[in-house]
């Protein structure tokens, strides 16, 4: 491999390189600095690194043709719209996680070098996952992400609950990823390649043609186990509430945003070649031939969101509640895969971006509440709204956004997602007046989605209600201006993004004026 070639390739993963360097820098800084200073320095370094990585994305090779993304490192590394969006999500998640962690009471006793390194490492591996086009890299990235997260979950190592959370997370995760690995081995056997795009297209072809169907489905099932664990999809979600509750709150926020998004990145990495494959278009109506896929994801979506929402109804612990809420959101997102079309993928990406903002916002307020009240039980938050109206306003905004109500971006997200489901239904009717079975299926999915979002309102509002409708006179609550700024930084976009135009431009590959301007500024 020539040097120039190597450099060209390295440019593609510039942001990952920046992160790797940051990890080293953080570790060195932590080694050199005393405890008190190292905290701030590591955080700042980490945030800067993540910001730099975010900016470095602008240097990523531009996507000229979404249908044929550019490959690097002999086809192992892929750089396309999908990976770009996911990387933005990951880096944003990392930035806010680090900022939150520094303010969290649960992590104040510990050094931050390892923490920053692990967060950045997790993000780094997640971004490799989003770009992986080879099962080797895919597996490594997947596992590295998991391993970092296991340690992060146990980072509050002197407490009991984080230990328990880490144990459950680790055992469940290791078993799930082993199962996935076994499934990957079958996929390799079926398609004789480790290259993901070729492999998945070939697999889909086999599914469509009906050759080796059982193994095809079994391998998919096994792979889905591992990914399902990451995105907390029913029935692989069991770890989720316990881990969110036990882990330090910023880590839970990280898991709910970055780790879940990484799971979806993995899923979409596998699914995207199939969705956009020109080979499959040759078969008559491939969508119909992949019935099992639609059915599987549709059912999974329905069950997952319903389970998450129903189980959340009676939660009294804020972190557990958010855990179930994140399960439910995984369900909504899976609707996009039930549709299995490119507009649905775009909707999923938009949804994920917005979900990142709103979930981080909600977690941020919870982090502060936990810090001030010393408990994550919702009851202990009573009356907090009047102590800090701004924070409450942001929390409320995030909660209604999570519910999917206008005038917040959460509505735009659900709007786009349900739109893609309904579009699939209407297209299945083929311009006729009869509602075919397929169409009815999609309509039912959409209905399940909206009804679920109505149900979810109940527990989100339970959260808000406690804070605003009840009084607790001796509650002390103080947050600094900076902390309020974080909240605003997450809350305001939620209002602004109701106009989802820029978001849609971002995900659908039409570069909006902001990005080129940013690019020229940087270059």
């Amino acid at each position, binding site marked *: 491999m020539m040097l120039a070639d190597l450099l060209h390739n390295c440019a593609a993963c510039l942001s990952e390189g920046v992160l790797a360097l940051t990890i080293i820098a953080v570790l060195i800084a932590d080694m050199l600095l005393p405890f008190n200073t190292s905290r701030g320095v590591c955080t700042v370094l980490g945030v800067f690194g993540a910001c730099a990585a975010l900016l470095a994305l602008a240097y990523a090779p531009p996507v000229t043709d979404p249908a044929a993304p550019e490959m690097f490192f002999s086809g192992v590394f892929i750089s396309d719209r999908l990976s770009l969006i996911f990387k933005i999500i990951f880096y944003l998640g990392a930035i806010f996680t680090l900022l939150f962690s520094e303010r969290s009471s649960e992590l104040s006793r510990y050094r931050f070098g390892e923490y920053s390194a692990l967060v950045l490492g997790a993000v780094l591996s997640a971004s490799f996952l989003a770009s992986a086009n080879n099962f080797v890299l895919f597996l490594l990235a997947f596992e590295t992400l998991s391993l970092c997260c296991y340690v992060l979950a146990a980072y509050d190592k002197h407490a009991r609950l984080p230990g328990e959370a880490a*144990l*459950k997370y680790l*055992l*469940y995760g290791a*078993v*799930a990823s082993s*199962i996935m690995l076994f499934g990957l081995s079958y996929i390799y056997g079926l398609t004789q390649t480790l290259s993901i795009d070729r492999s998945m297209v070939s697999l889909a072809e086999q599914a469509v043609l009906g050759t080796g*169907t*059982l193994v095809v*489905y*079994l391998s998919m*099932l*096994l792979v889905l*186990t591992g990914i399902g664990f990451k995105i907390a999809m029913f*029935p*692989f979600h*069991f*770890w989720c*509430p*316990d881990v969110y509750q036990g882990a330090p709150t910023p880590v839970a926020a990280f898991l709910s945003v970055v780790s879940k998004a990484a799971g979806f990145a993995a899923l979409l990495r596998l699914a995207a070649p199939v969705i956009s494959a020109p080979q499959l278009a040759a078969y008559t109506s491939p969508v119909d031939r992949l019935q*099992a896929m639609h059915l599987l994801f549709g059912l999974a979506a329905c069950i997952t969101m319903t*389970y998450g*929402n*129903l*189980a*959340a*109804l*009676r939660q009294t612990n804020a972190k557990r509640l958010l855990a179930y809420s994140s399960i439910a959101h995984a369900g909504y997102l899976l609707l996009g895969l039930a549709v299995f079309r490119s507009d649905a993928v775009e909707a999923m990406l938009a949804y994920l971006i917005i979900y990142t903002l709103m979930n981080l916002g909600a977690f941020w307020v919870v982090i502060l509440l936990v810090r001030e009240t010393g408990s994550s039980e919702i009851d202990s938050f009573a009356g907090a709204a009047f102590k800090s109206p701004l924070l409450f306003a942001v929390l409320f905004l995030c909660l209604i956004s999570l519910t999917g109500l206008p005038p917040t971006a959460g509505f735009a997200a659900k709007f786009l997602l349900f739109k893609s489901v309904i579009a699939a239904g209407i297209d299945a009717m083929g311009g006729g007046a009869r509602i075919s079975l397929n169409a009815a299926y999609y309509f039912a999915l959409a209905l399940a989605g909206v009804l679920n979002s109505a*149900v979810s309102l*109940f527990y989100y509002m339970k959260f808000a209600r406690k804070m605003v409708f009840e009084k607790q006179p001796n509650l002390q609550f103080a947050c600094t201006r900076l902390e309020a700024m974080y909240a605003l930084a997450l809350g305001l976009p939620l209002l602004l993004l109701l106009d989802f135009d820029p978001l849609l431009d971002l995900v659908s590959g039409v570069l909006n004026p902001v990005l080129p301007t940013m690019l020229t500024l940087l270059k």
Partner: protein
Amino acid sequence: MLNEIELLAQIIFLLPVAAFTVLALCHHRLPGHGDLTATSVLGTSLVLSVAVFLAALHAPDNILVNISFPWLAAGEASILSGGILVDKLTAVMLVVVTLVSFLVHLFSVKYMEGDARYGRYYCGLLLFTASMLGLVLANNMLYLFIFWELVGLSSYVLIGHWFEKKCAADAAIKAFITTRIGDIGMLIGILICYVETGSLEFSEIFAAVHTGVLTGSLRTLAGLGIFFGAMGKSAQFPLHVWLPDAMEGPTPVSALIHAATMVAAGVYLTGRMLPIFDSPTLLAIAYVGGFTALFAATIALVQDDIKKVLAYSTVSQLGYMTLALGVGGYAAGLFHLTTHAFFKAGLFLGAGAVIYAMHHEQSMSKYGGLWRKMPKTTACYLLSTLALIGFPGFSGFWSKDAILADVLEFSLERGHYFLPLAGFVTVMLTAFYMFRQFFLTFTGEPRSKHAYEQAHDVPWQMLGPLVILAILSLTGGGFGHWFEEMNPKRNALEQIQDFARAGVQTPLVQEARFKSAAPRAKDLTPAARKTERVLTKHAESSGELRHFAHQTAMILSTALALAGMALAWLMYFQRKTGKVAFEPGRLVEWCPNIHRVLLHKYYLDELYRTLFILPLRRLSSFSALFDRGVIDSLVNAFGYAGRIGALAAEALDRLVVDGLLVLGLARASSACGERCRALQTGYIRQYLLFTLVAVVFLSVVLVYLL
């Protein structure tokens, strides 16, 4: 000339309205809370009404004014209009209403003096009068209905004037609700008319009846509906129950209600709408009237409260009027309405004077010998009583005789002998109970010494109206000719058609008549057609029949009235010895059951209570409970279903039937949420096991089922 009448009519109506508005807003700033304002306004209206009446008297046409103005565009084509109709009937009614109302206003100045809500009382009176004037001036059913309801509202306000008393408040509600029951029928009648004819104006409805647009069972239904409304207002059996209770209001109000406004409205409506009633309806009207007359008279026999007796007598007299209208005695019925207004107002105001004198004591068993203390009142009262029982020469005699003659004639022609029988029996009963009342009140020895000592004759504000009314009771029979002129033909059928012809002077209808020459009475029932044949056959003998009926009725009714008087004299007139010729107590002992039933007014109130009011209340509290309870039971059911996974069909049924009740779903989903949470045991190995089971399950499905 006509324009002037239109203007006059408007002024007659608007004067009380304006006075009402002024009084409602600032009666406490006016001298005497506006009593004299109200009275003088009514006086003016009276004068103007008399002017209209005189104009009508000399008018060649029946209809003087019939103008419409758009009020509300109901649909694209149909516009609900308001309008004024002045015909001879209206003219009479205007005079009656304004006269009685004026006298009542005058009377109240003294009677209500010192009342806590004196100004408000006058507001009520003015509203009452204004609504009644609006009612008689309306040229369409919608306006009639509007004022009809306003009459109801005013009666509610006035009957409940002393609302601190529970019985007064109850009576007010009873009056409103009972009449509203009738109003529903009326509304349905109106709806039928509107839907069938596209208009609510009387003239167009009558034209539609005439041209056969509104016909058959719909016409019957409309007629019955409208008459049902009249039954409510005019207190016809079985909707009469409110009227005696309405005595809880101030006595002048009773006078107003009984003489000129509320109850008259029903009879007026029946008279006004007569053309749309077909013969079955008319027969029903006649029977209702006849039965009510008899029925109420029997109750009146045993009442002790001076006003209650008068109340039942009103019901009975209204029965007469309805009976008359039912047999086609248009002129007789409305004539009786007028004369009755005079003498019944006189009686009530007289009773008011007595009550005033006796310091609001109403029980006749506490009265006695009052003529010595208040001779003028007694004289007036006697005159009115004589008028009521139909003593020859008095106004009531003429009108009642006209009714009885019509009924007799009807019956001679067509059977239905119950009707004249009821009429004549009631004559005797009326005479009996009225003189019973008179004797108990004014003659004999005072039974309550204390009250008697303090009794005194009444001041001029009260006496004046009494005198005027007494004079009218005596002379009111002179109007009879005028009513006869108003409808010269006496045969029921002819009369109806004649009225329709007179009423429909719009070009449209005339044109229609010329064009189609609709077969006469094409919508008549076979019975009516038969009658018609009989009538034409006996055309020459018809006059003879009438003459015979008239004579018979006159003689018979006079005899019966005298008999009734004599009976009352026997039983209630205390001679010097303080004894009566025939102790009424003996009669009671003789048939105690009948007495008890009469005393309890045939237990109708109790019956209604058990039949309607209690079930209604129970139903409503049940619905209220249902509304809260069903949700809870649903919730339980849902929870149960969620818990044991009850039969899917049942669950589906519940889902379909009640599933969208959020709370039910919420509790159910919460219960399901609990089930979901039960999986979350906290044991990592169980989590792994669940996952393994899921994977195995899916792969087994894959292998063995797909």
